């Protein structure tokens, strides 16, 4: 069984085709193009050709778990160290660093959930041209070629992936600045000292001498090192009025990957672009650099709020992935030998049986750090998800309530406003779980505080919500107002926890509160302190039904270069340049940890973040930032969240209604209808826009929105089970069709058609559609084209109440949609909905299956213990034939069930079978 959410994608496209283009957009001049980013320009100027790198096979060392090998750049004689690991689960890790860097280069910590467990590598053959290693039982091999250096991963006679096949490996080694006085002094002194040392050591330390001799080339090479030509932007760079001092000089890295047989690549979010990545030869590469982009533009490769350096490649035979573990500014170039070929041209190739195989080439360029890349070799999409999950973890399992509807606005003005919006939902009988407070709730943008006039008694407000079994989210941004009367600021400053500017003082930038400083979340002690601030006795006015939203954590610095932090600010031993894309990741990590700690480790946290990195899925939800009330933005929310799902971040949503500007009523209704079927479902609006609570657009539209939200709530059991599944497996919740139909090329580009030999049922009308056809579905304002796939069983709770918590003990209705083989499968997951007790096996997990006219519920977790008051009130079987008798067997008892059969739609409804949702039972149709 699979999520059906993606199923609506093709159909949505139909009615979204009426998009209105508008010339309202980002100020591009505020953000760098590759040409304006010195290292990108430098690297991109390098064209494919023979690589100057050579593998020194004689330096190869192979242990049980890893292979090391030196590479040498024949132009400048700088040596690199290559490490190669075979990791459990069909992953190959390739690490390349300078053999002897002038100072350590940054290696990303905390993103991997552990040091990945290795599997033995074995040498198959070796000669002067290279080595061949086996990657375990499958016929997978790694071939390392020596001159020039390249690395190929083979399966049988097929090349899965090649590294440096286009010779674009570069490693700007760390160096002293030559035009400075200090360099000259140091280098002279150093060489004198070296000479002295050698004289003494040759007599006193024969071991050392031997070592020197063993490496004679090294000596010769380093002394002969070529004069590097100094280019602009190596030691200093200016963008607009901002200068970047670059005390460490050039440090960029780059590597190319060739993917034979691949025409479709996906991933590397976050970009406001199509799901399938485009080739970048005629424009800028895709950029990964967390930025607060004001009024972002659609369909281009500009950087946005988050960065996950993971790319998936897919064809009918195989899915693979590349995880480039680097937190510095990164650019990704994509080219393809089939790009630009018309469909006719491709067909001609096919008919003539000629031509090269299609191939996609990818090149990654990062400003600093090392090359640390994980090659996830599939072969299925689900294998890649599980491989990536084994490295960075899975989606955190959110509290059930957070899957409900969220009502947000910048801003709900005061407690009375919150109360009246809350009452509005009851009055209009629309369920919701969370109401949100944006920055205005604070005392002068001092996070962790409340406006003394507008939110004088926050606990009263929270208690009022709690009485209705509802919750609240209050924003806590990472920029801290510089104000000596502000406790949080004083503590951070006195502990020295702020990020430092290049001169050693606390870095100050401009953000919502005016002058602000930025805590150094890269410090574990800082994160621990931050987490402790969420304790109920620290965060005044907070209660257990209050959760947190981290915004502006790219970090956003209004007066900084590209609206973010200067790259030469200092985090301990590292420059901001090295770590930038990790800032938001750490902010959310520390905040989530705070929410866990305040409950004594019992309650699951809920934290929404705008900036993210690989691994952010472990800490909560993300949203697509400050979008706009336009049809195109509604449309882009689908590929944006699909892309995030592919790289592990399933809990994704877009601001329903659009953040900037005011939506037309039709757009708003459509957005609710779409948002109801996306994982994170929150309406949000800019301060300057008119109010848009769901009941402000006339009774008809209120009814449409109510219906969309209610559909969401009936499906909460399914969403919850999907999240549990994502939490266990790392598989995305919202999926492109190709993930489900990896062998059907028509799904790869996710166009407005789907071709699948399946049966589909409209979830509202139970109308049956056969697959393998182009289907045009007429829609009205009230219809949301959503289909349940034949072969699936979906549990729903159809008694929609005020909030998800109110529905906790409600009975289930099972929707069984039969496929052509008249079978179906599904799962049911139940636990307390909010604690970590599921980790202590306190849950119910059942497999529901229908085959041979028998529907049964089987325990998938016999060692787990949980009791529920929920029961099965109804079973609806779609595509059924009329039985003469229906018998339920549970706890050894047999009973006859009443049923109703609708012959026109082939829908069989079993009336009130009544068994407990956690019990073993069987229903027989005769």
């Amino acid at each position: 069984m699979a999520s059906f959410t993606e199923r609506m994608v093709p159909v949505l496209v139909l009615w979204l085709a009426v998009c209105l283009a508008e010339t309202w957009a980002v100020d591009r001049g505020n953000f760098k193009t590759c040409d304006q980013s010195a290292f990108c320009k430098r690297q991109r100027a390098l064209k494919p050709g023979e690589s100057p790198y050579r593998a020194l096979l004689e330096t190869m060392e192979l242990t049980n778990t890893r292979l090391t090998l030196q590479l040498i750049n024949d132009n400048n004689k700088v040596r690199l160290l290559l490490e190669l690991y075979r990791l459990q689960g069909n992953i190959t890790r390739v690490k390349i660093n300078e053999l002897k860097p002038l100072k350590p280069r940054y290696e990303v910590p905390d993103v991997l959930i552990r040091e990945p467990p290795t599997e033995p590598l074995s040498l198959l053959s070796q000669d002067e041209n290279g080595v061949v290693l086996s990657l375990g039982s499958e016929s997978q091999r790694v071939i390392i070629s020596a001159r020039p250096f390249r690395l190929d991963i083979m399966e049988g006679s097929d090349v899965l992936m090649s590294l440096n096949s286009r010779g674009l490996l570069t490693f700007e080694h760390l160096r002293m600045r030559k035009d400075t006085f200090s360099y000259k002094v140091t280098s002279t002194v150093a060489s004198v000292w070296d000479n002295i040392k050698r004289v003494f050591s040759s007599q006193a330390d024969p071991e050392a001498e031997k070592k020197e001799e063993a490496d004679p080339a090294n000596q010769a090479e380093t002394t002969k090192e070529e004069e590097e030509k100094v280019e602009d932007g190596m030691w200093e760079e200016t963008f607009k009025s901002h200068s970047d001092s670059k005390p460490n000089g050039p440090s960029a890295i780059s590597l190319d990957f060739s993917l034979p047989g691949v025409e479709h690549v996906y991933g590397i979010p976050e970009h406001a672009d199509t799901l399938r990545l485009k080739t970048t030869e005629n424009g800028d590469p895709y950029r990964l650099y967390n930025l607060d982009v004001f009024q972002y533009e659609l369909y281009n490769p500009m950087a946005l709020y988050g960065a996950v350096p993971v790319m998936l490649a897919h064809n009918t035979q195989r899915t693979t992935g590349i995880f480039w573990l680097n937190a510095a500014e990164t650019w990704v170039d994509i080219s393809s030998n089939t790009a630009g070929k018309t469909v006719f041209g491709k067909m001609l190739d096919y008919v003539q049986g000629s031509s090269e195989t299609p191939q996609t080439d990818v090149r990654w360029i990062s400003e600093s750090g090392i090359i640390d890349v994980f090659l996830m070799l599939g072969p299925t999409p689900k294998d890649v998800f599980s491989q990536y999950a084994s490295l960075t973890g899975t989606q955190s399992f959110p509290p059930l309530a957070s899957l409900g509807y969220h009502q947000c606005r910048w801003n709900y003005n005061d407690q009375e406003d919150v109360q009246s919006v809350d009452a509005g939902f009851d009055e209009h009988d629309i369920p919701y779980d969370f109401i949100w407070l944006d920055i205005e709730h604070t005392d002068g943008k001092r996070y962790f505080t409340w406006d003394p006039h507008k939110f004088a008694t926050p606990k009263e407000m929270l208690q009022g919500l709690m009485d209705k079994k509802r919750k609240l989210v209050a924003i806590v941004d990472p920029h801290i107002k510089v104000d000596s009367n502000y406790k949080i600021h004083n503590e951070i400053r006195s502990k020295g926890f702020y990020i430092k500017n290049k001169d050693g003082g606390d870095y100050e930038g401009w953000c919502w509160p005016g002058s602000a400083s930025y805590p150094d979340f890269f410090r574990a002690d800082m994160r621990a302190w931050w987490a402790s601030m969420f304790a109920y006795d620290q965060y005044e006015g907070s209660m257990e039904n209050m959760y947190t939203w981290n915004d502006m954590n790219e970090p956003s610095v209004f007066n900084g270069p590209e609206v973010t932090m200067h790259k030469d600010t200092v985090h301990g031993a590292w420059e901001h340049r090295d770590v930038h894309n990790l800032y938001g990741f750490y902010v959310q990590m520390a905040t989530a940890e705070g929410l866990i700690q305040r409950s004594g480790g019992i309650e699951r946290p809920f934290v929404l973040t705008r900036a993210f990195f690989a691994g952010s899925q472990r800490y909560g939800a993300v949203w697509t930032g400050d979008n706009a009330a336009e049809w195109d933005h509604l449309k882009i929310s689908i590929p944006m969240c699909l892309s995030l799902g592919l790289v592990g971040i399933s809990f994704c949503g877009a601001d329903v209604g659009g953040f900037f500007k005011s939506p037309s009523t039709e757009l708003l209704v459509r957005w609710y209808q779409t948002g109801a079927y996306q994982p994170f479902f929150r309406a949000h609006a800019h301060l300057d826009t008119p109010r848009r609570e769901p009941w402000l657009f006339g009774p008809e539209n209120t009814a449409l929105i109510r219906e969309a939200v209610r559909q969401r709530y009936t499906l909460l059991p399914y969403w919850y089970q999907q999240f549990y599944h994502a939490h266990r497996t790392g598989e995305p919740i919202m999926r492109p069709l190709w993930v489900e139909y990896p062998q059907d090329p028509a799904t790869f580009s996710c166009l407005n058609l789907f071709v699948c030999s399946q049966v589909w049922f409209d979830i509202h009308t139970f109308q049956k559609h056969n697959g393998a056809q182009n289907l045009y579905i007429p829609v009205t304002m009230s219809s949301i084209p959503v289909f349940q796939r034949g072969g699936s069983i979906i549990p729903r709770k159809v008694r929609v109440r005020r909030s998800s918590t109110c529905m906790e003990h409600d009975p289930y209705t099972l929707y069984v949609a039969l496929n052509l083989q008249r079978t179906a499968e599904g799962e049911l997951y139940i636990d307390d909905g909010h604690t970590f007790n599921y980790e202590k096996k306190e849950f119910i997990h059942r497999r529901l299956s229908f085959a041979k006219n028998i529907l049964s519920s089987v325990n998938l977790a016999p060692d787990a213990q949980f009791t529920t008051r929920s029961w099965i009130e109804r079973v609806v079987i779609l595509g059924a034939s009329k039985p003469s008798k229906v018998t339920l067997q549970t706890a050894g008892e047999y009973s006859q069930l009443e049923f109703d059969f609708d012959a026109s739609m082939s829908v069989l409804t079993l009336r009130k079978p009544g068994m407990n949702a956690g019990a073993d039972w069987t229903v027989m149709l005769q």
Partner: protein
Amino acid sequence: MRFQVIVAAVFWSGFVESRKVRGISSSYKRFYKERKSFLCIDGSKIIPFEQVNDDYCDCEDGSDEPGTSACPRGRFYCTNLGFRPHYIPSSRVNDGICDCCDASDEYNSPAHCQNTCWNLGQKERAYVEGQMRTLDEGLRLKQQLIEEGVLLWREKQAQLRELQQVAEDLQIKLEEHRRRKHEAERLKEQTLKALEAGDSGLRHQNRTETSIFQLLDSNKDGSITVDEVKTKVVLVHDEERLLSEDEALGLLGGGHQIDLTKFRRTLWDVLTRGDSVKIKDTPGSDDPHLEAADKAAEWEATNLKKVEEAYETVNMEISDLRKKLAIDYGTDWEFLFLNSQCYKLKVYEYIYTLCPFNQVTQKNTAGTEVSLGSLSISPHIHQPLEHISKVLPGQLSFPSEEVLPSAR
């Protein structure tokens, strides 16, 4: 075994009996009479009566489950004995939140709802009574205000009439005074002309030694003293300056007083030469007719001015009063009292001063005062209040119509 089934059935039907009333208002009871079967109220389906309120939704319209949460579109009737009955959506039945004050919606839930209807009813009744009292009080006050308003209105009307009368009178008076002033001026003019005509001769003829001596001899004692010289004689070229003691002595030929004879030889000589000193010029003063005419004209001018001022004042008062009377004070002048009242209101750091029918100002803690315009008030009673609340930032509550007078 069979016996057990029968017993169970008896219990069951008993249960049905007690259950079937749940969630139904008395007006709907006729649909739920205990029969073999139940017809969904929309007529769409017939089901066995046992399936009413059995926690499974059979009817499309939800009518078979008025007392459970089973139907998505159902509603539950809270009887709320002692308070106000009302419907809630079925989804609020047994959701753990007390919605009906009689706790009837949470009959199978962990929420421990108390029957609070009696208390609520009490409160409501007390509230309503309070409201009634306030209403009565308000109405009484309103009546009083109306009476006051009417009186005030009449008073003002009378005042207006009075003023108008005064104005009319003043008008007549004004005419009279204008005429009189004119007459007096004419008279004065005539006198002056007459004087000037014959008199240039008369004056000079009379200027004999004796007449001048007599003129200078202010106390008529037959001699002229230094002081008398000083008061009546001045320098030709500097009429303003008083003569000094020595100068006067000089004019008197060195003596302190002179008789007529001596006068002829001394001062008279000097005076007739006319190039150094002369008799102080006091035209008219020496003519009683002219003096009288002058005084009369002056008197009349002053009188006219006074009357004019009075007339202007009265007219202004009339215009003021008319303006005030032109404002709509409600059908019975019940808002008349608001005129000339001002109210102060503190909102955060601002103090607002609201003067109905007049100015609204905002003053901040720094003391800066901003006028927010005038508070014009139009025919219907509630509009002025809405008017005010639009001027001010949210969350202000204004006294209702009935309570407003007590804000006095």
